[in-house]
């Protein structure tokens, strides 16, 4: 549904996006990650036809965004960065304008309007000017605008920014609900969001793609992936370390505060650690297998990039 091919954008001498290639098929929710200024928003602005690429191309629903801009834009729902809105318009007037500009018939528009406001829980403020709304409501107005015409492709630039935890949960559930027959791209800083809704995540830094995989594949890149966290009595600490070192010579054992140990079993697995403890007849308070954390992976790879 979305095909991005060596997309590049220069602002003056600064290269914001550098030869980015990416394909997003139907049914996929792609988490678009990267530090601030990595080129996420610039990429989205190009794919939605707002900015013109310096080179490379992007196609949405088979329409080239440069050659066939309006056709491509007809199948995109877009929430721009910061959810801009005309402050003096009411929520309903703004949605109605977008629908009319998209050429929707009156009756279709009426239904679409109701559905979009339902999904984003905006009915209560339908007749309020947008400038009187809180940040969370404004974000949801932007979201309703993107959903209005039930597009095949959704491009959402930080859709949960400024929402409270309940609203964030609501938006994630909404994305999951409609994901099956759409291609959705969500940019975010919130890594738990990626685990919650995304089927795939890419990390970009300095305009380039530096990681691409399912959230669990990315988590596996954390050195702590598969490590064991043990809660131990300070008195037993020494015997636990001895027992594990004896059974698994290549294990890394890091103390975490005074009450816990993090054991990276190297080539062995967590069950080997458990077996070693069993064999030495040590009972510990807590035994947790860590799955790796996306934010650790994110920090590791984006900071390595910085140093290069």
């Amino acid at each position, binding site marked *: 549904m979305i095909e991005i091919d060596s997309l590049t954008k220069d602002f003056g001498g600064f290269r914001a996006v550098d030869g980015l290639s990416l394909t997003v098929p139907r049914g996929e929710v792609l988490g678009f990650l990267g530090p601030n200024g990595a080129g996420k928003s610039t990429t989205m*602005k190009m794919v*939605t*036809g*707002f*900015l*013109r690429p310096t080179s490379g191309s992007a196609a949405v629903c088979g329409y080239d965004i440069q050659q066939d*801009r*309006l*056709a491509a*834009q*007809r199948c*995109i729902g*877009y929430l*721009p*960065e*910061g959810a*801009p*809105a*005309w*402050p*003096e*318009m009411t929520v309903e*007037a703004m949605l109605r*304008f*977008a629908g*009319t*500009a*998209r*050429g929707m018939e009156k009756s279709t528009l009426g239904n679409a309007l109701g559905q979009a406001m339902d999904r984003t829980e905006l009915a209560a403020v339908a007749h309020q*000017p947008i400038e009187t709304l809180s940040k969370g409501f404004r974000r949801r107005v932007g979201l309703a*605008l993107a959903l209005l015409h039930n597009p095949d492709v959704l491009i959402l630039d930080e859709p949960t920014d400024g929402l409270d935890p309940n609203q964030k949960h609501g938006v994630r559930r909404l994305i999951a609900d409609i994901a099956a027959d759409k291609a959705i791209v969500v940019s975010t800083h919130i890594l738990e969001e990626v685990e919650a809704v995304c089927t795939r995540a890419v990390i970009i830094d300095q305009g380039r793609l530096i990681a691409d995989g399912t959230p669990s594949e990315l988590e596996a890149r954390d050195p702590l992936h598969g490590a064991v966290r043990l809660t131990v009595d300070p008195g037993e600490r020494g015997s636990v370390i001895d027992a594990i070192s004896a059974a698994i010579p290549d294990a890394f054992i890091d103390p975490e505060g005074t009450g816990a140990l993090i054991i990276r079993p190297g080539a062995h697995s967590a069950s080997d650690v458990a077996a070693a403890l069993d064999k030495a007849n040590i009972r510990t308070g807590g035994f947790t297998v860590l799955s790796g954390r996306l934010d650790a992976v994110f920090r590791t790879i984006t900071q390595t990039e910085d140093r290069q």
Partner: protein
Amino acid sequence: MSAGNTLTAVSAVMRRELASYFATPLAVVFLIVFLLTSGAFTFYLGGFFDRGQSDLYAFFQWHPWLYIVLVPALSMRLWAEEARAGTIELLLTLPIGIGAAVVGKFLAAWLFIGLALVLTLPIWATVAYLGDPDHGTILAGYIGSFAMAGGYLALCGFLSALTRNQVIAFVAGVSAAFVITVSGAPVVLNFFSGWAGSAVTGFIAQMSFLTHFGEVMRGAIEFRAAIYFLSFILLFLFATRIAVERQRS
């Protein structure tokens, strides 16, 4: 994009823009100021009664000067505000052509000035009641004034598309409107006629709004003036389109 789609887009943009004028005090303030100043100029400075003639020359002669200040006030937000607030991104990611957006916004502002002119119609009724005016001349005056307002609007709208700062758009608009107005005033022409050839002086006079509007005020609808204002509008709408397009790079 088919012609029908384009029309729908133009009308959607136009109606949104017009509605936004009336959602804020802008519309009311503009209309009141326009009516008060045009009335004051007509009766006090223009000597409407002292002239003892049943025409609206005293009314129309002030229009270029009113527009110099009021049109930039109306047009300064046209594009600058969209760029500052980021709503330009919403507008240009809807499936509407840039040309349609430019024309829709222009038409909204032009129609709004048209409304301001319609609200001055009581002054026509006044001369009709007091005397026996040449209604053709007055109608020509109204049409000419409306066309001229479109010219100022296209020029100042273009300037608004060059900046994201409304104040800059306003100041640049007033200056540009002033220059295009006075290039036909005797003081400017005398300045040039001393040393520039008559061809140059003639060209400068031809570019002036005063020259063309003066023709309109004196007689029936001047075909030449109509063509002039219309081409001026088209030229600057085209320039606006390029200026908006530039924001995409």
